[in-house]
């Protein structure tokens, strides 16, 4: 009795119970397929967020007011901090002191400003006063119209580049270029519309208004402190050097004596990227766990079906034993039946996973994690062996006389 013979018996047994075999296979198929698709969705959304953060530019560093820590000590120091100023920004653009800094721009954010165009109104989630350098540093190219110029900044002209969402809310389908909007009662002339940025998951990147820092400070925010300074390093590779240079320039200006008393902090996209990636990892693991449970349920389905099969085929097992089938042949047949079911389910599940991952699911383009494919497939085969083992050994240890009596 060789192994191929037993496999033939097993396949014949499966074909004889076609519908039941197909349903069991379906259970494993769904388990394996969902492991692959759900991890791909998790992975895909993490990739999407990473790339939208990368769009902001990985070589930009944001200087913000306040210490690096949290808690009461950080808050106490807040009172004694020096504001970030336009002068600080000017100091940072220094080819001698800071050779790795390409450019810097001050950012003065006005919050809660509502802009109107006749009856239409819009509250940009980002309302910033800055320099033209901001557009490149923050990776915000203009789609229609032009940027405002250094001249506009110097003169404090009330001109603005707005985002897609803001443009649509205020002007509908009309071109907003050269139109005037009233923001907090101050008129701004629109000169350009920024490229679509999309959502970063927290806020709409296209609900945006950018104007010269001079105009914003004079009319809306006042001159006390900038919200931040955005600094662009020459490349992502020299970001660390650029960060050191920022500290070398700002520390004397802010009378910082040690790292603990620094009254500003540096944020770079790389660390932001790390944080979101970590968050996403948790999300992916969660999805994978849900999928793994469905795989387990599929496995229990195999046990159930095989048990039913053994009971239903008790008489057949008795006949086989009466005509000389050894224990190993019966054990092998049922074990292989279970393994073929799970193997087939595994293969079809992998195919289903690959097909399913081609579709966009809740706005996420899934990206298959290769290890999830091997893991899901391997686990499904092991499930067949493991969950098929018990019914198979029950079948093999049936006594022929009792099995033959079974109706």
């Amino acid at each position: 009795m060789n192994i191929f013979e037993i496999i033939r018996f097993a396949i014949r047994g499966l074909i004889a119970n076609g519908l039941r075999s197909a349903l069991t296979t379906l259970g494993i198929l769904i388990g394996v397929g969902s492991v692959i698709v759900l991890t791909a969705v998790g992975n895909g959304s993490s990739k999407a967020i990473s790339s939208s953060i990368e769009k902001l530019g990985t070589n930009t560093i944001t200087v913000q007011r306040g210490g690096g820590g949290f808690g009461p000590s950080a808050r106490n120091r807040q009172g004694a901090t020096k504001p970030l100023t336009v002068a600080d920004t000017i100091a940072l653009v220094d080819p001698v002191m800071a050779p790795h800094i390409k450019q810097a721009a001050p950012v003065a954010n006005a919050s809660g400003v509502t802009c109107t165009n006749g009856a239409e109104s819009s509250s940009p989630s980002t309302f910033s006063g800055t320099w033209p350098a901001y557009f490149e540093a923050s990776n915000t190219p203009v789609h229609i119209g032009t940027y405002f110029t250094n001249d506009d900044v110097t003169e404090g002209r009330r001109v603005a580049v707005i985002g897609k969402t803001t443009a649509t809310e205020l002007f509908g389908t009309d071109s907003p270029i050269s139109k005037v909007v009233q923001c907090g009662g101050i008129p701004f002339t629109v000169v350009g519309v920024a490229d679509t940025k999309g959502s970063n998951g927290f806020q709409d990147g296209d609900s945006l208004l950018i104007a010269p820092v001079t105009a914003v400070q004079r009319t809306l925010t006042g001159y006390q402190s900038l919200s931040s300074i955005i600094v662009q390093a020459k490349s992502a590779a020299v970001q660390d050097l650029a960060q050191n240079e920022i500290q070398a320039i700002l520390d004397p200006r802010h009378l910082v004596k040690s790292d603990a008393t620094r009254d500003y902090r540096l944020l770079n996209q790389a660390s932001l990227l790390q944080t979101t990636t970590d968050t996403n990892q948790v999300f992916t693991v969660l999805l994978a766990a849900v999928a793994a449970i469905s795989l387990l349920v599929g496995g229990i389905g195999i046990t159930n079906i095989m048990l039913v099969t053994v009971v239903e085929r008790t008489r057949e097992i008795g006949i086989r034993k009466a005509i000389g089938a050894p224990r190993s042949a019966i054990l092998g047949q049922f074990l292989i039946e279970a393994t073929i079911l799970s193997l087939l389910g595994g293969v079809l599940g992998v195919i289903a996973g690959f097909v399913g991952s081609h579709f966009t699911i809740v706005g996420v383009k899934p990206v298959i994690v290769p290890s999830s494919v091997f893991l899901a497939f391997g686990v499904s085969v092991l499930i067949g062996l493991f969950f098929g083992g018990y019914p198979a050994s029950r079948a093999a240890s049936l006594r022929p006389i009792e099995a033959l009596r079974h109706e």
Partner: protein
Amino acid sequence: MTAVIDVRNVIKRYGVGDAAIFALNDVSLSIEQGEYVAIMGPSGSGKSTLMNIMGALDNVTAGEYFLDGIDVSSLGENELSIVRGRKIGFIFQSFNLVPRTSALANVELPLAYQGIKLKERRMRALKALDLVGLSDRVNHEPTELSGGQQQRAAVARALVTRPALLLADEPTGALDSKSTEDLLDLFDQINEAGRTVVVITHENDVAARAKRIIRMRDGKIIEDVLNAKKIA
């Protein structure tokens, strides 16, 4: 001549204490090679129990049983399956063909469990089916065969391993009179070829075809006679 079946003082008891029932109570029986034996008795006489023990399907409570010189009671599960496969050909009242499997595959099955190669297996199976007159039905599944045809396929399956003993349990119980006649003719033919045949039955006309008739009652053999008509 060696005895194909040698049952010595066999007791088979079900239950214990006061509830104990002796299905076989000190039965001794010897069957030589080439004999054609009918075992008769009413239901509950112990004839089926005796048949299960002779077929190595059940074990004895006490006593010894030698099948073709082998002490069956000392065998383990694996050796028992070999004995069943090679020494005994079973024929059951309800045919007991493997469902959804062609007659040919059914007949090949015991050879497959013995590890015989496909080519030889097929040849021997076709020969056995030819012997029972089913050459034109080899690819039919059990449900596509009549009762008589199913039982003949079962005979082919029992014979294909060239067993020392053909053991039939009420083989005609589910057959009409025509099929019964055909099957009994087949048994005669098999016995004439030198094969030992043991038939368990409660029908007199079935037993009448055997050369030796054993009657049982309450777990004991009460009569063991040669069939005068057949011997003569």
